[in-house]
């Protein structure tokens, strides 16, 4: 009885939400016709900042301070999960951990596919990070792709290898230095242009790899930070499952 009443209320609320969303959608502007503020933003970014990808122009320039906050959220989140997960870790060293998982269990096809994909995925990740101001993508997306490349090394069954290509200390340093680089660029804007995160570097020619001032610099900083953060969370989680398996 109570369940039925509860689902009736839920259905009613969902129907009301669907109606409201449908109503709001009728008022949207059509595709390809930016009007009002959107048009002004596109003009500023393309003509003044020389950023071909206006989405990253907004995230790394016009609202750079919000992005700094978001970056620090990810930094603290990764740090927090690492602290929590390490709390339960025993006193095993890296060598013992590598042996915790029997290497024969991974299928050959999976190992081959994983090993073959690592290289292309890392190249794609770097490409997406450094072309953030030119084409869709940027630091966050490229960073997660790079972390996925590291994860593939694990999927290919090379746990011992993972420790070698992705030492824990390097992951932590990458996370911290990415966050630090973003903060330094923010201070750079304060020093050279009078406002935090002001775009103080030369803008160059639209479409060149080195253009749009600080936007590609911030994109690379975020890329390094996100790679470190996601890789840190995933390695700590992997560590837990590996340890539990041998206990």
């Amino acid at each position: 009885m109570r369940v039925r009443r509860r689902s009736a209320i839920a259905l009613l609320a969902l129907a009301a939400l669907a109606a409201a969303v449908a109503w709001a959608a009728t008022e949207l502007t059509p595709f390809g016709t930016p009007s009002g503020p959107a048009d002004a933003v596109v003009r500023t970014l393309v003509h003044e900042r020389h950023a071909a990808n206006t989405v990253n122009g907004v995230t790394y320039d016009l609202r750079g301070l919000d992005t700094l906050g978001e970056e620090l959220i990810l930094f603290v989140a990764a740090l927090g999960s690492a602290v929590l997960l390490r709390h339960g870790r025993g006193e095993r060293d890296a060598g013992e951990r590598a042996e915790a998982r029997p290497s024969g269990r991974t299928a050959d096809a999976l190992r081959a596919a994983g090993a073959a994909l690592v290289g292309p995925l890392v190249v794609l990740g770097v490409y997406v990070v450094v072309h953030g101001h030119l084409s869709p993508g940027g630091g966050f997306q490229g960073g997660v792709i790079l972390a996925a490349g590291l994860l593939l090394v694990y999927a290919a069954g090379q746990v011992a290898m993972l420790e070698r290509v992705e030492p824990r200390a390097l992951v932590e340093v990458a996370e911290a230095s990415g966050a630090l680089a973003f903060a330094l660029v923010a201070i750079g804007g304060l020093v050279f242009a009078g406002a935090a995160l002001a775009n103080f570097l030369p803008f160059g020619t639209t479409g060149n790899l080195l253009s749009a001032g600080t936007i590609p610099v911030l994109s690379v900083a975020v890329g390094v930070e996100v790679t470190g953060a996601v890789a840190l969370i995933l390695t700590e989680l992997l560590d837990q499952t590996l340890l539990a398996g041998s206990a």
Partner: protein
Amino acid sequence: MTVLHVVALAVVAVGGTTVVLVRDPVRQALAASVFGLALALLFFAFQAPDVAISQIVVATVAVPVMILLTLTKLRRDEDEERRR
């Protein structure tokens, strides 16, 4: 609104419902990642490639892997509890 938009919206609606109706957590994680991919295609169809790339990397790489690793850990802990 083209056929592509209608198809993408329908696939997302079906996918989202599937994720809710699947009860086994492991299957749910996989269903959620397929649903995330459908959502990414929807974003592409609606001309938002930046969001679509974020959606692909988060929904098909980061989230399912974290959920599966957590489930593995929880199940192993349960097994150990039972053995004791």
